[in-house]
Structures are given as structure tokens and as C-alpha cells.
């Protein structure tokens, strides 16, 4: 199809845009866990939940988790449920963890059956409004992992990468040129920092970098970075903190 098109176009004019472009894409969906049958009680509970945060689910892609659901084996039931949900402006597009019968029914009702996936806490789903407390929303997945601080008591050598993916990173030694230290939270270096330090990599703009002696190749907080070349010659070098002020990365002395 694509080849034919381009051949066809070649005779007339140069094709500037490819007719079809395919890109893989990851995105986050909200999983709605259904426990029990999809009856009036469920819809009433859903309405109740939606009243608490009216904007939260609006237009968010939504998957129905049928692991603990009862019934919903027929196309009619699922189509009806989807219709009810769309009436509440919930953009349901698929199901997960369903039985073979439920999957077949979903396919007939125009819903796709997803092969699993990974749960993340809801606050990572980038919506402007936060979810209500967990006890008010038993159907929404919410298991925030405890923040984990990593402590390294050896020098971090050139070529090594240390990553604290869920919390702060503390390095009790020098960080060599060519080494990389990365944290979701703050970074503390009790030694000379010569390598690259990236704090708040998940987008936490309040993250900071603290270090005894600063000689870094690159500093970054929440994706905003400066290299040693554009840090300037007159920044403080001893006992400093690095933080974001608006859109600007600042190096300040620790008082």
C-alpha cells in the first residue's frame, strides 16, 4: 500500500510526507477495579466517587480490571456497562485480567483486551488534581512504595552509574569525572563531586544537590541542567547546594 502510493506519487510530484508513520508509544491509563457484579450498587458507588473529584477522570484513558468481577460474560452486559461509563464521561477503551469469555465479549463490544501491564501509584499519573484519600476510593489502585534512600560509602569511579530510583542518594566519598549519580530525590556528596549529578529525575523540581566540594561536569535538577562550562567561574565551590529557582539552576553556598 505504502509502496504503491509512493510509486504513484513519484510520477506526479515528490512526496514530502510519508502516508503512514508508525511509532511505538507508552502511556499511562487508569485501571478501574471492579469487585462484584456491575450492578446498580457499583454505579452508585462510582457516581459517589466521581462527585468527590469531578475532573479527575475526565477524558483519562481508562481500563476496566475484571479480575474480581462477576458476570459480564456477554457482549450485551459489557456494552451496557461501557455505555453507562461513557455517559459519566469516562473514556473506557479496554479490559484487563478478564476470563476468555469476558475477553470475547469485550471484543464484540468494541473494547480491547489488554495483556497485563504494571501498576503505578496514582499520583504518578500526571493529572492536575490529586486523588482523594485511599479509604474513600477502594476501587483505585494506590500502593505507594516507601521512599528508599541509597547510601554509598565508597568512591564512585569513572564509568560507574549509581541510581537511587525512589529516593535520596548519599555518597560518602568522591565522585570521579566520568561517573554519574542519579536520584529521584536529593543528592548529597560528602567528597568532591567531579562527575555528573542528576537530582529529581522523575520531575521533582524541589530536589536539591548538596556537596562538600563542587567540580561537577554536569548538574541537573528535574531535567534542567548546566554543564561545567556554563556554570561560570565565580560560583561557590565549597559547601554548596544546587537548587531550582523557577527555571534557573542556582548554585548557592550553604550557610
Amino acid at each position, binding site marked *: 500500500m505504502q509502496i504503491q502510493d509512493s510509486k504513484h506519487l513519484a510520477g506526479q510530484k515528490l512526496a514530502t510526507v510519508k502516508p503512514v508513520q508508525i511509532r511505538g508509544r507508552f502511556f499511562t491509563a487508569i485501571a478501574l477495579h471492579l469487585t462484584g457484579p456491575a450492578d446498580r450498587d457499583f454505579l452508585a458507588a462510582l457516581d459517589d466517587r466521581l462527585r468527590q473529584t469531578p475532573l479527575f477522570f475526565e477524558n483519562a484513558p481508562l481500563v476496566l480490571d475484571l479480575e474480581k468481577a462477576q458476570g459480564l460474560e456477554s457482549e450485551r452486559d459489557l456494552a451496557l456497562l461501557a455505555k453507562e461509563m461513557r455517559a459519566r464521561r469516562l473514556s473506557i477503551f479496554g479490559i484487563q485480567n478478564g476470563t476468555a469469555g469476558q475477553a470475547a465479549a469485550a471484543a464484540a463490544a468494541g473494547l480491547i483486551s489488554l495483556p497485563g501491564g504494571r501498576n503505578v501509584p496514582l499520583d504518578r499519573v500526571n493529572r492536575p488534581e490529586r486523588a482523594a484519600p485511599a479509604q474513600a476510593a477502594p476501587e483505585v489502585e494506590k500502593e505507594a512504595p516507601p521512599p528508599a534512600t541509597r547510601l554509598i560509602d565508597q*568512591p564512585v569511579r*569513572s*564509568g560507574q552509574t549509581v541510581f537511587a530510583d525512589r529516593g535520596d542518594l548519599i555518597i560518602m*566519598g*568522591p565522585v570521579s*569525572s*566520568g561517573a554519574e549519580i542519579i536520584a529521584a530525590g536529593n543528592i548529597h556528596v560528602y567528597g568532591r563531586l*567531579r562527575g555528573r549529578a542528576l537530582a529529581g529525575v522523575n520531575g521533582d523540581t524541589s530536589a536539591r544537590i548538596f556537596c562538600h566540594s563542587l567540580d561537577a561536569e554536569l548538574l541537573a535538577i528535574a531535567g534542567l541542567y548546566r554543564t561545567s562550562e556554563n556554570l561560570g567561574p565565580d560560583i561557590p565551590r565549597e559547601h554548596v547546594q544546587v537548587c531550582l529557582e523557577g527555571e534557573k539552576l542556582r548554585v548557592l553556598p550553604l550557610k
Partner: protein
Amino acid sequence: MSKVIVVTSGKGGVGKTTSSAAISAGLAMRGHKTVVIDFDVGLRNLDMIMGCERRVVFDFINVIQGDAKLKQALIKDRRLENLFVLPTSQTRDKDALTKEGVKAVLDELREEFDYIICDSPAGIERGAHLAMYYADEAVVVTNPEVSSVRDSDRVLGLLNSKTFHAEKGEGAVKSQLLLTRFDPQRSASGEMMSVEDVLEILAIPLLGIIPESTTVLKASNEGTPVSLDEKSPAGKAYIDAVGRLVGEQIEMRVNPAERRGFLQRLLGRTA
């Protein structure tokens, strides 16, 4: 208890093979039964530095592949009774090395020798990795120059994570710094990194400082380990370093540059 010591650096041309030869000769001079193994498969040099290139029949790779016995491949040094060389193959490449093969050879050598010196190839790939993998200790050879220091730092990271001891959780391989081709005058004038700068970056104990010396190249060309020349400053520095390697407390002398002859001084400062 025998010790496997790897001589490594990351960067090429800093003096790994020269240092391996000098250290193993120095250990043998002290009466320790020592073997030095060339891990630089395909770029065989150690046998030349040791002056035994004409006597190579079987090599390390033949032993690993079972084509020869270890006894057949070991070359006994003509000058020192306790010194043996295990040369490598010039015709094969690093893929001929296997973890199991290296382990089997080292285990057999451990039964007979006090010290097993592994002369690592440059780089951090297979040859260098296998040279350091079973090491108990490491001598990191570094020149006082930024790229050499950075590469040594990288190698120290690998020694702490990619070796048998590290993988078994028995802690890092004990690593010591051998600073080679050091010129005190150029260091003092800021042309070269100072000992303190290098130590600050690498943060490991200093095993020795080998001064830049013309005798090193001469010894290499003649096939004599530098430490056999006890009169040269470099030879003395290697002998001191070997003493520290076996646990002696020897004061670190930053060797004064080689004294120039009266005539040379008269003729001016060009060296």
C-alpha cells in the same frame, strides 16, 4: 598462601608490561617463587621484555585449550632461579581466553608459586577483564596525566565490581597505585600532575613512584627487567615498590631526577 596480582591500567602505553616484568623479577630476587603471565593475547610483548622470546614453544592459550601441559609452557628465567614466564599466543585473539580455562591454569599455578603476576592488556574488554577477574590484589599503573588517571579510575571501578571476589561479596580487590614515568621537575612546574593530585582522584594507597628514566627503554630493548638494574633510579624505585607490595614499610622517596653529567650540564639544558 599464593597471591594472584594483576598489573592493570586501562590506558595503553603507561608501562604495564615493564612494571609486570620488574615486579616479578623483584619478587623473585627476594626469594619468592614467582610466575608472570601475559594476558595480552595477540600482542605478545612480555616475553621480549623478559628476554625469553626465542624460547617460546607452547603458550598460555595452548595450556587453556589442553594442547600442552603447564610445565611445557612455563619458561624458566636464566638470571633468576625463582622466576618463570608464561607467554601468550601471538597468532590468536582474546576470544581464546575463557573464564574456566584461566581459572584452571591459575589454580594449578597457585599450588606451586608464591606470587602469580597477571600482565593485563590495555582496555577493559575480555582480555583485561579476565586478567583481573581472579586477582587477589591489583597494581594500577598510572602516568601523571589526566587521561591515564581517568582510565585508571574506571579500572578501579571494575576491580570493585567485576571480579570474582567482588561478585562473591568478599569485598573489593586490594588495589595500589604505581605511578610511572614521573618527572619531578615537570610536575613541580605544573606541566605534569602532582602525586597529590593523582592520589586525590584515585583515593587508593600509593605503592611506588617510578621516575621517568632512559634506563627503562634501554632495559626493555635488552630484554632485562628494570629491577635487575639496581643502580638506576627506576630500578631502585621498583625494588622499593616490591618491598611495599610484600608488606614492608619503606619510605617513599620522590627520586631526584637523574643527575646529568658534568659535560651535559656544560653543553646546556637540552635533554
